[in-house]
């Protein structure tokens, strides 16, 4: 809301401008963040408190407890899922970088106009969803002998981290002045040498953006992991928690909510730090 409009509002005797904004901000913050607040409250409540419908669910009617966290870490595969996710994430990031960094540089610098076209084509493959490909992909995974293995997702996940990463890095490389590389090549470096020793080091922040983005995509993916991996012990967090922390029809809500919160928050913090760069990638040039 622009200040001048706000001033007019006051003059006409309406609400002061800040109030409306704070009302909007408050309502949206509560609606959007509520499930996470609820996960936090549920995680520390005693089971008898959780399952007594006469109790006010917003209050700790009995003292808080760590029993759900103990159960989660000692008696479930949660820690294993965290490690699986971190390991798979690291390898997917590695594959993504090795393939995307040179590809993006080539498309930004060495291939002229049709490089740009190809870049857009690669970006559009980001729109092809797992739910269109999962059936044939499960055959491909079986063919590669990777069913029920963490390797299935390590091999498949770059199919969605690569397109977006290449797109982000292309924009990044284009913003580097050509003169820098030209100068390095006059000094005797080859084009590839200039890429490795000059362009990659000054692009570290762009590369870091790709690392974080790819890693968060790995933590969020659900469909492929659910389709390819059938043993609980080989799962990632995003499938393990909602599917395998439920025994039969029994939901261990306390531990379940603790697991959701513990897995979500670090990802959320990381994503937030790099948000503006990701958004620049999503806007497809519609914002200058």
């Amino acid at each position, binding site marked *: *809301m622009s200040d*001048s409009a706000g001033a*007019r*509002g006051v003059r006409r005797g309406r609400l002061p401008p800040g109030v409306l904004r704070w009302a909007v901000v408050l309502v*949206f*913050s509560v609606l*959007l963040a*509520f*499930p*996470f607040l*609820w996960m936090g409250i549920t995680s520390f409540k005693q089971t008898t408190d*959780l399952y007594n*419908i006469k109790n006010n669910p917003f209050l700790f009617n009995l003292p808080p407890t760590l029993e759900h966290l103990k159960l989660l870490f000692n008696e479930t595969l949660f820690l294993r899922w965290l490690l699986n996710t971190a390991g798979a994430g690291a390898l997917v990031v590695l594959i993504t970088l090795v*393939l995307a960094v*040179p*590809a993006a540089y*080539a498309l930004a610098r*060495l291939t002229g106009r049709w490089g*740009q076209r190809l870049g*857009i084509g690669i970006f*559009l493959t980001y*729109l*092809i*969803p*797992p*739910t*269109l*490909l*999962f*059936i*044939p*992909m*499960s055959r*491909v995974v079986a063919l590669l002998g990777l069913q029920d293995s963490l390797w299935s997702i390590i091999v498949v996940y770059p*199919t969605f981290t690569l*397109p977006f990463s290449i797109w982000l890095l292309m924009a990044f490389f284009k913003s580097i002045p050509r003169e820098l590389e030209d100068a390095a090549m*006059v000094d005797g470096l080859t084009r590839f040498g200039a890429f490795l020793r000059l362009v990659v080091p000054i692009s570290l922040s762009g590369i870091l953006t790709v690392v974080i983005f790819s890693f968060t995509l790995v933590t969020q993916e*659900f*469909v492929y992991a659910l*389709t390819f991996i059938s043993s609980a012990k080989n799962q990632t*967090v995003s*499938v393990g*928690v*909602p599917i395998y922390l439920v025994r039969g029809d029994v*939901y261990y*809500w306390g531990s*379940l909510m603790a697991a*959701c919160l513990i897995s*979500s928050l670090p*990802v*959320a*913090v990381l994503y937030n730090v790099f*948000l*503006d760069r990701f958004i*620049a990638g*999503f806007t*497809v*040039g*519609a914002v*200058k």
Partner: protein
Amino acid sequence: MAVTRQDRWLGPAMFAPALLYIAGLVGVPLVLAFLYSVGDVTVGSVGYHFVGLANFRSVLQNPAFRGALWHSFVFTIAAQLIVIVGANVLALALRNPFRGRGLVRFLTLLPWVAPISLGAIGWKWILDSIYSVVNWALVSLHLVKPFDTPMWLGEPSLAMISVILVHAWRMLPFSTVILLAGLTAIPRDIPEAAAVDGAGFWRTHFEITLPMMRPIISVALLFGIVFTFTDMTVVYILTRGGPYDSTHVVPSYAFFAGILGGSLAEGAAASIFLVPILVLVAWAMLRVAHRSEVV
């Protein structure tokens, strides 16, 4: 320095590995998806016979699939309507800096940033048939009677509403930050000049700001459509398509038929129904990109 002879080989050599990876693991499955949808593949068999449109005919004859197709459109359109209105309001409120904006941004982004399967299970607990906090609040406010509380995920129309709201909850932060990027890119002096000329806040907003934001709103909408229309996580976690198939969507139907039911051909045919929407969105996105001169 111009592109030299040596560079002419270097370029393709540098992007070939990525291109081959994508061609092999996106291109091949994509072709297979079409082949499966017109063949008779099952989990057990290795043979393949062309069966024409038989799979499409059989899924279309299935009322559960027709329902799923209908729900896909209803859920996507309803959720995106909520998202676009909500995101516009929230983006306006967040445009100018204020104390605590960083915290607000973090809180409002959570649904998009946290893994959706975990957010959805959070909602499953909030909407639990017995211990729902929503129902507790409704009972305390005397809006519903105890022991006659709404079954948010157990009654067809309520389950549909729940799925729509969770989709909207998930996509709203994403659209908000995209619109925010568009808002901050509008040169400040244009709305200010309009205000000086006597246009009020709403008039400036609807006649100047919104038209300038059209491309960015389309981008947010297009991504929103793809992410909602092709998602099966929300439905799978909240309702598994139930009660009585009332919340199945095309992707969740394909998963149940193709992966859990073992009828790869039927599942593949169901998935193919996503393609027209994806093609439309891709086409629209290219137009937006073309207009803003990036192509």
